[in-house]
C-alpha cells in the first residue's frame, strides 16, 4: 500500500470515557489507533461495506451497575422458551457486560477467572478490538486443563438498556484449551433496548485440543453488535465455529483465525438471516502460518426486506504454509427486490504447493424448484420455507456438536416462522 488509509470519523466520545489509559500499554495502543484511524467509514478497505459513521453521533454511556432485574429475568426465561435451552446446561452469564455469578452455574472441568485489564488484554490491530480494549471492564477466562473433556456450556450475554439511555458494553473473554482438551461453547447474546455490544474473545487451542464454538447473535432490533474473535490454533488442534446472525440493526462478527502449527484445522462457518433495514457483516481472516493445515468456510446469507448482508473472507497462506488445503464458499439468497449482498472473498497466497479455492453465488429462489414443489401440492409459503431451510442446511449441518446444531436449527426455524407470520 502506498497511501495512508483514509481517516474515519472521530472516536472522541469513546476515548473520553476511558479513565486509566496511561497505566496500560494495550489501552495506550488502542487509544492511539482510535485517535489516528477513528471509527471506520466506507473509505477504509476493511470496512468498505460497513460504515461505523453513525456510531460517532450516539451518546453511548457505560452500563449501570444495577440493571432492570425483571427485564433480565424475562430475557433469560425467553431463552429457555424460544431456544429450548436445556435447563441443566452449565452456563456463565454476563449482564450488561459484567459477570453475574448468581445467574451462572459453571461446569466441572472449566476453571473460570475474572478479567483484569492488567493481565487479560491481548494487543490486536483491528478497530473493534481497540474499542473493546479501551473500555473493557469485565469478562471471563475459561480454561480447560490438558486432556480434560469439559463437555458443553453456554456463555450468555444479556444487555438491558434503560428507557431513554444508550449503553455500550465491552466484555473481554478468553477461552484456553490446553493440550488434548475439549469443550463446546454456545455463545448466545440477547438484549433489550438501544445499546452497543462489543465483545472480544481470545481463543487459544493447544496441541490436539478441540473447541466447538456455536455463536447465536439474537440482539434486540435496535442494537448494534461488534464482535471480534482472535483464535490461535496449535498442532493437530481444531477450532470449529459457526456464527448465526439474526439480531441487531448493525452487526459485525469479525474472526481472525491463525493456524500456527502443522495439522491444525479451522472451520469458520456462518449464516446471516436478515430482514427490515438490518445490516450484518461477517468478516474473517484465516491465516495459514504452518504447513499442512486445513481451513473450511461456508457462509450463507438470506436477505429479506431492505436488509444488507456483507461477507468478507480472506484466506492468507504464508510462504511456509505448503500443503495448505483451503476452501471457502459463500452464497446469498435474495428474498426481496430491495435487499442487497456485498461479498468480497479473497485469496492471498505465497506458497506454491497448496490447494485453495473459493466460490460465490448470488441469486433468488429458483423458480423451477418452487414450481416443482407447487406442482406436487406444496403451498407457496411452505415451498419457500422448504427451499430456504434447505439452502441453510448445507451450512448449519457443518456444526460438529449435535446439541448445539439443534439450537441453531431451532433458531432458524423460529426466525422463519416469525418472518413468515
Amino acid at each position, binding site marked *: 500500500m502506498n*497511501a495512508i488509509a483514509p481517516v474515519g470519523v472521530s472516536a472522541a466520545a469513546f476515548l473520553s470515557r476511558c479513565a486509566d489509559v496511561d497505566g496500560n500499554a494495550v489501552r495506550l495502543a488502542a487509544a492511539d489507533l482510535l485517535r489516528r484511524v477513528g471509527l471506520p467509514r466506507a473509505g477504509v478497505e476493511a470496512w468498505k461495506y460497513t460504515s461505523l459513521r453513525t456510531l460517532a453521533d450516539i451518546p453511548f454511556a457505560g452500563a449501570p451497575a444495577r440493571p432492570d432485574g425483571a427485564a433480565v429475568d424475562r430475557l433469560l426465561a425467553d431463552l429457555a422458551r424460544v431456544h429450548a435451552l436445556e435447563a441443566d446446561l452449565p452456563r456463565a452469564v454476563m449482564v450488561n457486560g459484567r459477570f453475574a455469578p448468581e445467574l451462572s452455574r459453571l461446569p466441572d472441568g472449566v476453571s473460570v477467572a475474572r478479567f483484569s485489564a492488567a493481565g487479560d488484554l491481548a494487543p490486536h490491530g483491528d478497530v473493534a478490538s481497540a474499542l473493546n480494549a479501551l473500555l473493557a471492564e469485565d469478562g471471563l477466562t475459561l480454561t480447560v486443563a490438558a486432556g480434560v473433556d469439559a463437555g458443553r456450556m453456554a456463555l450468555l450475554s444479556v444487555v438491558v438498556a434503560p428507557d431513554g439511555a444508550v449503553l455500550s458494553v465491552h466484555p473481554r473473554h478468553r477461552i484456553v484449551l490446553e493440550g488434548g482438551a475439549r469443550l463446546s461453547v454456545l455463545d448466545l447474546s440477547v438484549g433489550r433496548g438501544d445499546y452497543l455490544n462489543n465483545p472480544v474473545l481470545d481463543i487459544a487451542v493447544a496441541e490436539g485440543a478441540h473447541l466447538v464454538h456455536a455463536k447465536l447473535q439474537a440482539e434486540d432490533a435496535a442494537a448494534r453488535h461488534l464482535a471480534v474473535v482472535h483464535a490461535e490454533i496449535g498442532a493437530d488442534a481444531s477450532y470449529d465455529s459457526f456464527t448465526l446472525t439474526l439480531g441487531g440493526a448493525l452487526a459485525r462478527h469479525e474472526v481472525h483465525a491463525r493456524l500456527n502449527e502443522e495439522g491444525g484445522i479451522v472451520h469458520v462457518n456462518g449464516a446471516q438471516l436478515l430482514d427490515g433495514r438490518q445490516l450484518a457483516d461477517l468478516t474473517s481472516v484465516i491465516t495459514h502460518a504452518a504447513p499442512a493445515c486445513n481451513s473450511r468456510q461456508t457462509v450463507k446469507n438470506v436477505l429479506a426486506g431492505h436488509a444488507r448482508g456483507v461477507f468478507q473472507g480472506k484466506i492468507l497462506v504464508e510462504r511456509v504454509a505448503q500443503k495448505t488445503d483451503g476452501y471457502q464458499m459463500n452464497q446469498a439468497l435474495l428474498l426481496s427486490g430491495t435487499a442487497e449482498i456485498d461479498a*468480497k472473498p479473497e*485469496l492471498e497466497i505465497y506458497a506454491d504447493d497448496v490447494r485453495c479455492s473459493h466460490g460465490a453465488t448470488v441469486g433468488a429462489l429458483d423458480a423451477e424448484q418452487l414450481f416443482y414443489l407447487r406442482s406436487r401440492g406444496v403451498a407457496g409459503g411452505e415451498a419457500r420455507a422448504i427451499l430456504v431451510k434447505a439452502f441453510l442446511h448445507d451450512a448449519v449441518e457443518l456444526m460438529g456438536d449435535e446439541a448445539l446444531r439443534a439450537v441453531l436449527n431451532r433458531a432458524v426455524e423460529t426466525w422463519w416462522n416469525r418472518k413468515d407470520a
Partner: protein
Amino acid sequence: MPAIAETRDTVESLGQSTYKWGFETEIEMDMAPKGLTEETIRLISHRKQEPEWLLEWRLKAFQAWQGMTEPGWAKVSHPPIDFQDAHYYAAPKKKAGPKSLEEVDPELLRTYEKLGIPLHEQALLAGVELPEGEVARPPVAVDAVFDSVSVVTTFRETLAKAGVIFCPISEAVREHPDLVRRYLGSVVPAADNFYAALNSAVFTDGSFVYVPEGVRCPMELSTYFRINARNTGQFERTLIVVEDGASVSYLEGCTAPMRDENQLHAAVVELVAMTDSSIKYSTVQNWYPGDEQGRGGIYNFVTKRGVCRGDRSKISWTQVETGSAITWKYPSCILQGDGAVGEFYSVAVTNNHQQADTGTKMIHLGRNTRSTIIAKTISAGQSDSTYRGLVRMMPKAAGARNFTQCDSLLIGDRCGAHTVPYIESRNLSAKIEHEATTSKISEDQLFYCRQRGLSEEDAVGLIVNGFCKDVLKELPMEFAVEAQKLLQISLEGSVG
C-alpha cells in the same frame, strides 16, 4: 545431435536477456522540457494545434489531478513517483505535410520492421508464392505510435471507402472535432481517477476509431505503442465509437527499450458501443518488465472502460499481460443497454520482480445483461500477481447474469498469487456465480510430459498454455500465436 544443439541454445539464451524488443532507436527528438505545469499542457496543446475547448478540458483535468492522491488500494509497491521528473512530450522531428509511408523517417521504419510490425500495405494477391515458412495473413491496418505521436497509419484509404475512420486522435481532433468532443471523456471522465486525470491533462496521441451505422469493419485495426525516449512517460488516449449494428476488432501491442530507470505509461481507453454493435478489444501487453533484479521496467497504470450504451451491444476485452514492472489495469464494461454483453478474458504472467494488479469491473445497469470473466494468473520468480474484479448488479438489472472464473498458478515458492473479487447485488433476479482456484503445476502432469521426452521447460510451457487455453482462443489468430510464444519467453528461467 539435436540434444546437444538444444543444450547449447539454452545455455546461450541464459547468457543474454530474453527481452528481444529492448533496443533503442537513435532518432532526433523534439521534447518538452521536464516537469508538469500548466505551461507544459499549453505547450502540448499548442504543438498539436488543438482547439480552445480541448485545452480548457485539459487544464480542468490538470486542476482536478492536483487535488487528487495516488490510489493506495492496489497490491503493488513502488517508490514514490516524481511527476516533475519526466518529459511529457517527445516526438520524432519531422517535416510538416501530409503523412505517407515514403515520408516517414527510415530509422523509424527500420524500428517497426525489427519489432515485426507490418507498416507496408502489401496487398494479398491470389496465387502469389510466399517465401517458405511465411503464412498468408489477412491485412491489418496499423496506427504506429512512437513516444508521444503517431508516426503512420496504414490502410486508411481502404477503410475510408467502407466509411470507417481510423486515425491518430490528434488528427481526429482537427478533422472530426464534433465526434471527438461528443465522446471524449464520456466513458472515463477527466477526473475519474488519479492516472486518468493525469492522462486527460497531458495525453499526446493514440488512436481514434469510428465505425458508422451498419458497417462491419473490413479488417482488423491495430495500434502499436512504442516508448523510445529516455525520461518520458507515454500517455496515450484511445477512443473507439461503434454505431448501431456496426462492429470492429481492435488489437493493441506495445514494447519499450530496456533501461534501469522506471518509465510511466498511463493510458486511457474509452469504448462506446451503440445498439446491436460489437467491439472486440485485444491487448498483448509486452512493455519492458525490468531485469531479473527488478531494476527498470514500465509502470503500466491504465484506465480502460467501455460502455454498452445500446441494447444488445457487446464489448469484449481480451488481454495477455506479460510485460511491465507494475501493472495496474482494470478493463471494465458498463452494461447500460438491455441485453448488453460484457466479456473479459485475461492471462497475466509475472516473473522475477514484476507486480500485477489487474482485473475488471462489470457494472450491470440494464435488464438481461450478461457478463463473463475468465482470468488466469501465473506467478513465477519473486513476483506478485493479483486478480481484482468487481461485479455489481444495480436494482434495474433484472435477469442479469454473471459468471466469473479466476485461476491462479504458482511456479516456485517465492511468488504470490492473490484473488480479490468484489460481488455486489441489489437485484433479486440477478444471478452471480464466482469460482476461483489456486494451485501449482501438478507433479503428475509434469512427470507425464517429462516421461515422453519433453524438457522441463517445454513441459511447463505446454501445461501453462493449456491452463490459458480458454483465454488464448479468444484472441485473433496471429495474436494467439504471438501470445503463446510470449508466455513461454516470460516464464523462461522460472523452473529448475
